[in-house]
């Protein structure tokens, strides 16, 4: 036992330790106050991000229907393979189980998988879906996702109208046009799918899963079902579309048919077309290269984006200008001997022997170049340009399709600007027969035919007929409110009659468009044959003997019936040869199909009425 037993120094020091303990524990309380009260919200968010994993469910897009309710675009079920965690072993196992694309970037998949579901393969065949589902336990992080996928039952028939959908690109993500879309969304990339993308898209649903630290889904926290997009009905008639497509077999070109009374587009085709279904899934690089490098440009919509010289169809504009300016009357006769010498150059008529003495109506019907050359001589280029613009040439029509071009109505100002050269009088003579710099689209020419047929009414062409709301909340349609006040081109009545008579005689009299004639229907029309190369280059050889790319474009524009027309049409066949021989028959088939279809519907209604009476 110790002798020295003075405890006081130790007891004194214990008091200091007591103070130290209290201080340290109090410091801890402060720290926990900071973590649990001051910064609690931020940590709660982090905890949430740890264990709540939202999985987006794609909304089915709305249907696209033709004017009779037939389906142009619908959805089919499909399955995607996604990876939710960056597990290399899962990816390796998947590689053997399903056929992954040869250029699959494993590293990129793994990187993205750490941030959220990474798409490994789209649109799996059903056997692969079964294989992956059966081995779920051996494939942690791999998931089969159900996705509605766009399907176009009419295939290439509707390609340039509906366009196609495609994955949202990096540039589109966050753009105004695609506001409210999510990464990995499919959006309309062209055509109707793009113009009406917003209402068609609907609203994605979401399922929020509670996951553990290994990514296993423990339970569903919340589920918001996806909402269908609105369906859109178009003014397109699939029957007409089919007839036009068949008529264009092996030909390149465009056709537009519309209703002159309201601008509704009944058929719109560009040929060759492509199958929009190829874009609905992951289009592989090879297929994409084939489509974009095709020398026939199947992806270009020739009806709204193809710019062509109008050829003789432009004579209608020139005639209207000459009549309105009082330079000629419908009865003014001029003689044609097969050629005209103007400004020191010889201009040839389309009929080598000449048309003899013809008035304006006959000149239009027979497409006499000499007559138009002389009109061009009397008219200023500015006057021709003014009337061309009056008919809507030189500006986009405003149809509800993306990327429409404006064409070109040349005048001295344009030439100065574009080529820094003065306007030569000889050029006006070329423009008078639709050659030279003047360029139009098939859609503009269909609208021009409709304007003449209806004596001056110009409606904005439109594909949209009506919306069919579905589950989604109505979205404001950017293009919903159509221009109700149609524009009117004010020519004198007699002048409209002269143009109309010329077009009627072209089909039904002694004219160039006789192949568009239909028994019992008063079809009116005008042909055009536009040169793609200068006369000098073509030398004296016949058009049919030339290499295809130097052959003329064939035009036909027209409308029917003669009084109160219901349908106007423009047909363009690239390098087709003569308009009367190649374009007019195609127009005839489409017009005939239109009127046959109308009769069929009338008969059907009659039968239904009869049944109802019994």
């Amino acid at each position, binding site marked *: 036992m110790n002798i020295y037993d003075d405890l006081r*120094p130790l*007891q004194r020091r214990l008091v200091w*330790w007591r103070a130290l*303990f209290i201080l340290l524990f109090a410091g*801890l309380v402060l720290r926990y106050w900071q*973590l*649990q*009260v001051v910064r609690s919200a931020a940590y709660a968010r982090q905890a949430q991000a740890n264990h709540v994993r939202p999985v987006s469910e794609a909304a089915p897009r709305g249907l696209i229907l033709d004017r009779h309710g037939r389906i142009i675009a619908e959805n089919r079920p499909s399955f995607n393979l996604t990876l939710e965690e960056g597990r290399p072993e899962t990816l390796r196992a998947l590689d053997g189980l399903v056929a992954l694309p040869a250029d699959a970037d494993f590293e990129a998949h793994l990187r993205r998988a750490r941030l959220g579901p990474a798409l490994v393969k789209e649109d799996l065949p059903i056997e692969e879906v079964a294989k992956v589902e059966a081995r779920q336990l051996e494939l942690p992080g791999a998931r089969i996702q159900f996705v509605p996928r766009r399907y176009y039952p009419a295939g290439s028939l509707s390609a340039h109208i509906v366009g196609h959908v495609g994955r949202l690109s990096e540039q589109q993500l966050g753009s105004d046009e695609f506001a409210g879309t999510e990464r990995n969304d499919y959006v309309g990339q062209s055509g109707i799918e793009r113009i009406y993308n917003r209402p068609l898209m609907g609203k994605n649903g979401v399922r929020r899963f509670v996951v553990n*630290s290994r990514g296993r889904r423990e339970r569903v926290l919340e589920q918001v079902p996806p909402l269908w997009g609105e369906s859109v009905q178009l003014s397109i008639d699939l029957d007409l579309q089919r007839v036009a497509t068949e008529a264009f077999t092996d030909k390149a070109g465009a056709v537009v048919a519309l209703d002159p009374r309201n601008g509704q587009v009944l058929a719109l085709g560009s040929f060759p077309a492509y199958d929009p279904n190829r874009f609905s899934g992951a289009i592989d690089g090879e297929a994409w290269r084939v489509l974009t490098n095709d020398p026939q440009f199947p992806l270009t919509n020739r009806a709204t984006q193809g710019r062509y010289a109008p050829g003789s169809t432009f004579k209608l504009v020139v005639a209207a200008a000459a009549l309105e300016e009082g330079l000629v009357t419908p009865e003014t006769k001029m003689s044609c001997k097969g050629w005209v010498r103007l400004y020191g150059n010889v201009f040839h008529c389309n009929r080598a022997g000449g048309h003899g003495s013809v008035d304006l109506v006959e000149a239009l019907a027979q497409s006499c170049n000499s007559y138009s050359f002389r009109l061009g001589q009397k008219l200023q280029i500015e006057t021709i340009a003014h009337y061309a613009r009056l008919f809507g040439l030189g500006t986009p029509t405003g149809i509800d399709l993306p990327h429409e071009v404006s064409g070109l109505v040349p005048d001295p100002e344009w030439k100065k600007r574009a080529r820094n050269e003065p306007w030569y009088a000889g050029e006006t003579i070329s423009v008078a027969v639709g050659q030279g710099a003047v360029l139009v689209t098939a859609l503009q020419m269909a609208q021009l035919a409709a304007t003449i047929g209806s004596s001056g009414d110009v409606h904005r062409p439109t594909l949209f007929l009506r919306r069919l709301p579905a589950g989604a909340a109505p979205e404001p349609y950017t293009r919903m409110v159509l221009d109700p006040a149609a524009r009117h081109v004010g020519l004198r009545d007699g002048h409209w009659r002269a143009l109309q008579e010329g077009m009627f005689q072209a089909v039904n009299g002694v004219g160039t468009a006789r192949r568009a004639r239909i028994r019992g229907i008063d079809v009116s029309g005008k042909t055009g044959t536009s040169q793609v190369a200068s006369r000098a280059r073509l030398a004296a050889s016949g058009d049919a003997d030339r290499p295809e790319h130097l052959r003329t474009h064939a035009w036909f524009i027209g409308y029917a019936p003669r009084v109160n027309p219901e349908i106007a049409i423009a047909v363009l066949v690239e390098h087709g040869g003569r308009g009367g021989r190649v374009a007019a028959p195609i127009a005839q088939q489409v017009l005939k199909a239109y009127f046959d279809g109308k009769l069929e519907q009338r008969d059907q209604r009659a039968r239904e009425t009869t049944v109802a009476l019994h």
Partner: protein
Amino acid sequence: MLERQLWRSIDWVTILGLFVAAGFGLLVIYSASQSGPTPELYKAQIARFVIGLSLMFVVMLFDYHTIVDRAELLYVVIVGLLIYLVLFGGLRAGTNRWLELGFGTFQPGELAKITVVVFLAKYFSGVRKDQLGTSEVLIAGLFAGVPLILIALQPDLGTAATIGIVFTAMALLAGVRTKLLLFGVFVVVLTVPLVWNFALRDYQKERVYSFLDPARDPLGAGYQSIQSMIAVGAGGFVGQGWLEGTQSQLQFLPTPHTDFIFAVVGEEFGFVGVVTVIILYLVIALRSLETARRARDRLGIYLVFGVLSMFVFQALYNLSMVAGLVPIKGFPLPLMSYGGSSLLATLVGFGLILNVRMRCFVN
């Protein structure tokens, strides 16, 4: 053996504190192990608590002078065991800290801490001065240093550091001259870079790095610290409720039933639960300081204070670690964390503290 008077002077307040802490620990162990592979863990912990309590009462039975009389023997046995472990110990979890017994495993390091306390208490109480001399500090340091280095070689730096802390605290209580104290600080400052460069293994350095900047490698070494702070912070003021903590139940929290059990407390019982536990530990600590003050001789004071400094250091370090204040080190939270050796050592230690208090009036 135990007279009526002694029985009556048992400190029931401290015993109640131990029961509350261990009981609350069981509740949290239950919650933390539910989603894991071994939801029955709490049963084993109950058994250990019962064994620990029995050992505690055994320790209380004999007068602490009788126990301290055998300090040298205890010391030799422990050092022998530690040498054996370093030379022949089977590797377990990358270290040699486990001793295989017929019926289970035990960490002699835990027992070594108690032994060092007992040995130093005996040595310091034999110094009949108000302050230690240089030679006495060196001798005591040598005796503490041998098991410390053996344990550090296992390697179990946590336990080694605890022994260092206990030695320092007890020496400071015994009184160290200012010059010597400054010299000691100087030596430590010199030693740190040496230890850093030659003694620490890469994973240990990584822990320090990730403590200094947890965002450095949020999925690697910084992960535990970040997840612990998220759990605690997300608990908020009142907590998410027992069995309801997402961080612990969905296994984002590492070792939620052992070293990070307090993060579960923070997540499921909130700031309220955290403060309750902190106050409980402070009450136990202050109560033991009171026992030290009342001890009838210097040996009693040293004994109580040695055990207490060990307990307080481990608790403070663990609570600071969970709060992201210090680097991650494998320190369990005494009384609450799952694990036998630590619980047994803690209860045996409190057996000594209660022993001193029981006998403060006897002579």
